[in-house]
């Protein structure tokens, strides 16, 4: 049976990775290898109050930073958009904290760290900060997380939403967990996807297919050399195509499955 194809335009893009603290920086790096001098070590999302910016978990900081940037680039009010937050592991450092504290002193668990341990913590902080009462979801699909998150965002557009915010991110693992579930550095990407055609903006057409001979995952490129080891690197073939005038990206979508993304600019 043939796969159903879904289409949406990319109204805005957000990006934050090691050494590349914006989509502009990522595009410049893709174009000529240039790097930002003294890039920040972690994002400082303006959506949060100054004291919260420092205290927020890394995953929340990177997710809100790229989400805000994508909305700004799209010229969309963050409060108006339904959102899909996609992360392979959520905040691995909080998982490490919870597990090690449970061994040593379970009755001292921090209530704030506990509520920040939910997979939808970034989605929660985003909706609170943006004043967004629109639906928000938080998903994971292990190494297929980005493809499945993109598919869900495209499905939301196909089933009635005019525009959807997709936010993907992963962070650094710590403690014994880091050897079994490795992830290094901070990486985030966001897309505002809209149903209408937008002149001059990329239009995505996606479909889920069987992987096979001659139909494999697009290999990682330049962005992956800087984001090496982060669990969200499977998103990079799409961002590399979007930044470098590519016309397709094949994303890992689960065992034996590929999400084929065609990119056209009108």
């Amino acid at each position, binding site marked *: *049976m043939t*796969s*159903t194809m*879904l289409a949406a335009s990319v109204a805005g893009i957000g990006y934050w990775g090691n050494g590349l603290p914006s989509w502009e920086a990522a595009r410049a790096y893709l174009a000529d290898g240039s790097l930002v001098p003294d890039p920040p070590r972690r994002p400082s999302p303006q959506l949060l109050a100054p004291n919260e910016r420092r205290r927020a978990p890394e995953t929340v900081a990177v997710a809100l930073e790229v989400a805000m940037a994508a909305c700004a680039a799209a010229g969309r009010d963050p*409060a108006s958009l339904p959102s899909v937050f996609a992360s392979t*592991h*959520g905040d691995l450092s909080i*998982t490490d904290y*919870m*597990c*090690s504290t*449970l*061994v040593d002193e*379970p*009755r001292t*668990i*921090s*209530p704030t760290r*506990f*509520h*920040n*341990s*939910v*997979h*939808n*913590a970034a*989605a*929660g*902080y985003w*909706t*609170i900060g943006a*004043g*967004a*009462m*629109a*639906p*928000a*979801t*938080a*998903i*994971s*699909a*292990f190494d*297929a*997380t980005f493809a*499945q998150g993109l*598919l*869900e965002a495209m*499905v*939301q557009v*196909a*089933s009635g939403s005019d525009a959807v915010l997709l936010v993907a991110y992963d962070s650094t693992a710590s403690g*014994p*967990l880091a*050897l*079994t579930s490795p992830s290094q550095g901070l990486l985030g990407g966001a897309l505002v996807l809209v149903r209408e055609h937008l002149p001059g903006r990329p239009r995505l057409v996606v479909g*889920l297919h069987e992987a096979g001979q001659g139909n494999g995952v697009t290999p990682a490129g330049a962005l992956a050399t800087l984001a090496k080891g982060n669990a969200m690197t499977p998103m990079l073939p799409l961002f590399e195509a979007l930044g470098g005038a590519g016309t397709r990206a094949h994303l890992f979508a*689960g*065992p*034996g499955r590929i999400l084929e993304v065609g990119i056209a600019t009108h």
Partner: protein
Amino acid sequence: MPAVAIRAYTATTAVGRGNGALAEALRTRRGGLRRNDFGPDRLDCWIGRVDGLEEHALPAQLARWECRNNRLAWMALQQDGVLQAVAQVRERHGAERVAVVMGTSTASIGASEEAYTRLVGEPGQQRFAPDLDRPIVHTPHSLGDFVRAATDLRGPCITVATACSSSAKVFAQAARLIQSGVVDAALVGGVDTLCGSVLFGFNALQLVSPDPCRPFDQTRVGLSLGEAGGFAVLERPGQDDTGLQLRGYGESSDAHHMSAPHPEGLGARLAMGDALARAGIQPEQLDYLNLHGTATPANDSIEAAAVAAMFGPGLHASSTKGWTGHTLGAAGIVESVIALLALEHGELPGILNSSRPDPACGPQIRFDNARRRIDYAMNNSFGFGGNNASLVFGRA
């Protein structure tokens, strides 16, 4: 929205395995909570624990996914013809055209917790023991990936983890996947199991009751935690379809606080209103509402006020958490199953352990069971991060 057919459904909770045990417990008002006997350090509270998980290892071919949460998923999958219904939709549409959409709050973090209790190696270089050095059980998608492997389905496979609304949202996501034509059917569900993180985490938030929880009672002091698993097989209906259906869903965000509900219940009202609108029914047409009703002081008075503002006195609304405990990411599927049982058998559960209604309770909040044929039932599930979902079920 286009209705979605429900071909099979099931829930396994502290009251027993499958729908028969659940329906019987609801009808006879026999709760499943027991004094906390979970883990080495036992908080003074009551829990909804599923018996038999310790003795039921996963089959050898699924050993990679071995953990308490996936054991409960496996146990729940065997009940009420779910696997047979999965086989039928796979046969009709092909494995590529059937999605797996699972909801969980903590997935199998119990396995990660266990790994930290028996690390191997020198201090500073400690790692997980070989039997727990399996990445798939230390990540939120443990559940979705296990169910995919256990059913051989090849459509979109995703785990929704929005805390306690997770396995209500799976119905909405599956409905969209079917509506947009990506798939023709979906296996949805949710599983959450007891673990240190949630027991001590909710304790840190001072939300755990020392006694069995008392939803909507003016003396309630908090929730009782539980574990549960459940599934439903959804399919695009045919021309002359009969049987139970998902008729509407509504999702919203409170945009208020990470662990406290919006004081006026605005997010809850948005979700319920959108679910009714998608179902194309008026509030007075709704017969039964399974409330989120966690028995925390804040949730129940706010939810009761929101219900009183939206619905007439004819609605029978209740929380069933006195039977099962708050099963977190599984609450959506468990309480959807209870709503479906009410549609199928006409048994409307009341509320267990409660006797003195909170002042915010309108005439909708019913402590006693009732029996009557109904046409529409709703389920509310609200989670941390202000994440809300409401579902409307009916029949063709």
